[in-house]
């Protein structure tokens, strides 16, 4: 048990890989065995991550990162096998293991050819994604970051739709282009640290302690930003997303939207902000990032509204939702950041479920054209009900998850300046418009297309893939406190580094305000950030 406790992260990380190895020994012709094993391995991956829920103790007074595992890997260049998680990565890991299992379960009947390769790719992908969220060593992080690209490339390219090759290559090259720039940034920090201290290390925590010159921070920030922004994707780096989503098989879309996109935002939260606090808080960069976020919110929603393909519509809605996440990050205050992380989870739940829902209808009708479908609630009531709940969670109705995330982000943005929040709420209104319109066109009305009249409602397996997400959506919507609790400390640590003046200023209290004075829009303008060196930065 002690061993299990000490190496829980490695176990979570290597369970899918172990499953992969066993899978290789199962003959490809035994389709049922392959299918069962693929699901069992993924489910096992989820089971071994469950103890984290009980063991993760955010009250523990020790350092920010928990369950640390650390050993030398390539000593000559200073690369280490260094894993550790905080509340932010904890939530994302849970999201990954849950979505990984559900998406594989959803492919039970959808994937009929090259089944063995398919499940193998998914297991590899799962390991890559988990590794990204656990790594505290830049070298290791980069390895996982790239490892993950390969299976996704094959998943889109082999099991995808008509334009799968175009989409797969676009996805791969686009992301790679960003990753390479990010690598350049990592290497800059690596060599600069060596110049300053004589030590070669990729250790993120060590690098965080170093006082980087503002000029260097600035350039490295942009290198990171391109890598992460392509992954998020932020406007205008988003166009690989609709193509990849539309062409990918259902499970690929679920993972792509649910987890892969989060790596970009995670990168900003984990690396850009604490490593490069002065750059991240500089008014110019905040302005650029926030402007791009707000453009993404409104632009993504408007483009989404006019799509004719359900998957494309949801893909653009992701652009809009992720705009909220990046907006929250660059509000640089606890509300914005914790809202952003929670919204990332929410987006994984809601959009993951939406892609599952589209996949279910695609499997039946082999089309995603909105105009081909109408009045489906007449023939598929269970489907329509689940779709309704998921849709409402996506548009941020109170008591469901989306509202909590959006509201907290808006609150964070509002504390900086009301303009941001005012622009962002436009996205909320449009969000309701495009989702309701989609729902009305596909579910309501009369079902006159004979092809639709014979459709069967969901079977038990299909319901099982959706229900956990619905439950999770209600959980966050009704009782988000445990989630915020887990996020509280890591977020505070990041804000402390990037925007220390936030804690210096007392929060606004009504009694402290003299009559008639205009209220300062926020306790801390981000512009005041760069002038105050972070206290944690020791030279």
């Amino acid at each position, binding site marked *: 048990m002690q061993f299990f406790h000490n190496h829980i992260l490695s176990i979570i990380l290597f369970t899918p890989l172990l499953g992969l190895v066993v899978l290789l020994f199962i003959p490809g012709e035994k389709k049922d065995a392959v299918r069962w094993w693929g699901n069992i391995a993924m489910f096992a991956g989820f089971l071994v991550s469950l103890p984290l829920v009980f063991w993760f103790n955010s009250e523990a007074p020790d350092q920010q990162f928990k369950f640390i595992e650390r050993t030398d890997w390539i000593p000559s260049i200073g690369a280490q096998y260094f894993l550790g998680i905080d509340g932010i990565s904890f939530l994302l890991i849970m999201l990954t293991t849950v979505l990984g299992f559900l998406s594989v379960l959803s492919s039970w009947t959808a994937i009929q050819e090259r089944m063995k390769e398919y499940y193998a790719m998914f297991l590899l992908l799962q390991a890559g994604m988990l590794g990204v969220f656990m790594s505290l060593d830049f070298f290791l992080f980069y390895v996982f970051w790239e490892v993950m690209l390969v299976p996704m490339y094959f998943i889109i390219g082999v099991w995808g739709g008509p334009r799968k090759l175009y989409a797969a290559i676009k996805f791969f090259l686009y992301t790679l282009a960003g990753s390479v720039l990010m690598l350049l940034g990592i290497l800059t920090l690596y060599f600069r640290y060596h110049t300053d201290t004589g030590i070669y290390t990729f250790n993120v925590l060590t690098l965080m302690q170093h006082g980087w010159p503002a000029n260097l921070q600035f350039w490295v920030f942009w290198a990171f930003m391109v890598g992460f922004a392509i992954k998020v994707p932020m406007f205008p780096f988003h166009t690989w997303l609709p193509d990849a989503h539309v062409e990918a098989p259902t499970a690929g879309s679920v993972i792509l939207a649910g987890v892969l996109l989060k790596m970009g935002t995670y990168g900003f939260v984990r690396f850009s902000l604490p490593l490069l606090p002065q750059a991240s808080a500089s008014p110019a960069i905040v302005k650029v990032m926030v402007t791009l976020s707000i453009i993404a919110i409104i632009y993504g929603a408007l483009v989404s509204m006019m799509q004719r393909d359900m998957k494309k519509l949801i893909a653009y809605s992701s652009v809009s939702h992720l705009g909220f996440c990046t907006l929250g990050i660059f509000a640089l205050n606890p509300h914005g950041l914790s809202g952003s992380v929670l919204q990332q989870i929410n987006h994984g739940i809601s959009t993951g479920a939406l892609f599952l829902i589209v996949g279910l209808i695609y499997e039946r009708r082999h089309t995603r054209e909105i105009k081909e479908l109408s009045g489906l609630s007449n023939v598929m009531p269970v489907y329509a009900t689940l779709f309704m709940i998921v849709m409402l969670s996506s548009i941020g109705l109170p008591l469901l998850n989306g509202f909590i995330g959006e509201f907290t982000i808006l609150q964070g943005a*509002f504390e900086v300046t009301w303009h941001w929040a005012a622009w962002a709420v436009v996205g909320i209104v449009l969000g309701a418009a495009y989702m309701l319109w989609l729902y009305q066109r596909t579910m309501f009305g009369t079902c006159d297309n004979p092809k639709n009249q014979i459709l069967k409602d969901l079977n038990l397996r299909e319901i099982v893939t959706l229900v956990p997400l619905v439950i999770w959506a209600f959980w966050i919507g009704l009782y988000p406190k445990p989630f915020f609790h887990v996020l509280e400390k890591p977020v505070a640590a990041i804000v402390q580094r990037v925007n220390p003046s936030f804690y210096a200023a007392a929060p606004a209290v009504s009694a402290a305000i003299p009559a008639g004075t205009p209220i300062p829009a926020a306790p801390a303008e981000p512009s005041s950030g760069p002038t105050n060196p972070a206290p944690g930065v020791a030279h």
Partner: protein
Amino acid sequence: MFSMLVLVLADNYLMMFVGWEGVGLCSYLLIGFYFHRQSASDAGKKAFIVNRIGDAGFLLGVMLITVTFGSLNFLEVTEAARSGHFAVGDGVITAICILLFVGATGKSAQIPLYVWLPDAMEGPTPVSALIHAATMVTAGVYMVARSNALYVLAPTALALVAAIGAATAIWAASIGLAQNDIKRVLAYSTVSQLGYMFLACGVAAFGAGIFHLMTHAFFKALLFLGSGSVIHALSGEQDMRKMGALWGKIPTTARTMLIATLAISGAPLLSGFFSKDEILWQSFASPYGSKILWIIGVVTAGMTGFYMFRLFFLTFAGKSRVPHEVEHHIHESPSSMTVPLIILAAGALGAGWIGWPKALGGSNHFEHFLEPVFENPALRAAEHHTWSLEFGLMLSSVAVAAVGFYIAYRWYVKSPETPERVVASVEPLYRVVLNKYYVDELYDALFVNRAKDLGDGLAAFDLGIVDGGVNGVGFTTRVTAEASRLWDLWVIDGLVNVLAFVTKLLSYPARILQTGLVQAYALLIVLGVLVFMGYYFLHF
């Protein structure tokens, strides 16, 4: 229902918002109850989206409250607002109030966001009665009244509320004059009555607003359920032009409807009379009121009298215009439908008595009941107006309503051909009013279609420019690669080949000699020997 209770019982703005959205969702689902009808699902969607626009304002207002007060609790906010830290007219407070009011215009169907409510009549009639007349739509009024401590600090916002309220009251009443669908008349009447409530709030007479909210709930729910009963009796007919002479045929419905119609028109001693006159009086006498507001209110009262009795006479009096096949089926509704009517009728009769004004010798219990909530020194100033003035105003408004009643009586009972003549004489104006001033069309043209165009444009932009840029980069790379290939093939490799070619060319003479034939070599040797011999012979 649960959401509605959450909304009303919430002790802070966030919980209130949760309930607020919850009722919005229920409303969306209930309007779209007959979802196979395109118009019903359109109406549901419209209601939700228009409400969302208002909600956006509400949400921003809530955030501004948090940032300003550090709390969302009603008591704490109210206390802070009354503590004197904020001057009257404070910019932030005004902003909060206006943002909250934007939310209220969405939920409570005020200009410019009232357009969803008439369409919401696509839902089942009991739904219309409950949420679109009595409870949900009044949430906005409740919210404004709940925030009264903030509003009294923001005279600009109050003026805006009063102006919007009065404008909505008369605007919707005028649309109601010409509608033929029985439920639509009631819907516009609801919008108009909500306008009254906001008018009351806008002149800082929050108590009067809530009072009217309550009485309105009785008589409007009664009217809706009554109309439902009529529609039921006529096998689903909603067009008043195909009704008439139903008084004797569905007596319970007719009698209760008469009570409600009298109440909403403000007939003395019925519930609507007390609350409406309270509002009119306050709009005249309150420090925030003015004569213009009062005049608008009174004119609206006249219109109300007219359109409500038009509805009543068209439905229950005159000659029957019911088609024959329907006429056989006319029957009074079962008691499950009539008993609620009777209970509500009792309310519509008597609910006003708890607010019996002092001018008529009463004690206005209702106002005392709410006094701790709406504690406001400014209102005390209104007291010094004489009661005789109040009484006079009361009489005039009743008189105006009576004029409305009389016109309706003349036109629809005495000489049913008059309306057609009148309509013919003001044909263009009538068309405009009948079509609701074309506001829906205007919104479609201005916002809905423009948003769609913008979406289309941006989608094209996304495909052409943004994605085009990405593909352009890909294309450029390929062109460059192709150029490199050609360069490599023709220039770099070409150079190598040229070099080889030159070498080959140069080697040609040497090569042709290397034939591999011994005889040829022998011949050459012989020739060579001969050449040398010739050379020697020539020179030596």
